[in-house]
């Protein structure tokens, strides 16, 4: 018991340093991280313009091909873009 009391005093001394405190910005930072990210109005316009130009360029570059091949080409491109986007999002979330 004497030894236990002595260890008790020793531990109190060894861990007398001030304990860290949580910052006031904690909750804001967490909510920012869990909130679904939305593009700003300017970002949305940029994305729409980019998609329209990309689609027009794709159609122009495939102008000699038949409609079915063009549809397959565009669909495959979109599928690859969606897959890459999902992969990047998964990497960013740390899963």
């Amino acid at each position, binding site marked *: 018991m004497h*030894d236990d009391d002595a*260890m008790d005093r020793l531990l109190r001394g060894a*861990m007398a340093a001030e*304990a*860290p405190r949580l910052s006031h910005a904690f*909750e804001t930072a967490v909510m920012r991280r*869990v909130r679904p990210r939305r593009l700003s109005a300017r970002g949305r316009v940029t994305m729409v313009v980019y998609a329209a130009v990309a689609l027009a360029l794709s159609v122009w570059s495939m102008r000699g091909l038949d409609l079915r091949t063009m549809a397959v080409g565009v669909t495959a491109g979109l599928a690859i873009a969606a897959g890459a986007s999902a992969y990047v999002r998964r990497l960013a979330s740390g*899963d």
Partner: protein
Amino acid sequence: MPYAERPDEWLVARCREAADEAAFAELVTRYRGPVFRLVVSILGQAFAADAEDVAQDVMVRIHQALPTFRGDAKFGTWVYRIAFNQALNAKARARFRVPHVGDEALEQAVSRDRDPHERLQETRRDRAVVDCMNDLPEVYQSALRLHYWLGASMSEIATLLDVPENTVKSYLHRARRLLSVMLAERGFHA
């Protein structure tokens, strides 16, 4: 009824069924303190600076895992289990960059208003206590830090570690005995 008066289960259901941001914010407010203290108790003094980031990661993980919460255990118990595991992972990663404090640094840190030799011995003994603690089982370390460093009550430690209060007392008693033996092997006596 305001969210602050709603039970955890209701808030969890709101998060899951309606993606209610305010409900999750209320859960964060309720659990940020205990989660942070549990994380600090696992990381220890050496990595305490990382505790806030780890606690944030815990909250984000909880948000992602809410759809898988089945309600078999209490929500708080589930939260603390996630926090414990996340903090252990963070500690394992942080060990690779553990800072080494040499005797020279300790000598420079010695206070001038007391006998320097006595103070140096005391500082070395305190460092030995902290070093030996790192060799104890994780739950013992966590219980010791919560009790001695963070001033947590027995019931708070029992809740955070999900064990009865008598088990916490037993953890602390066994940890002190083990530490005493380990310190004696290094030539320090309590």
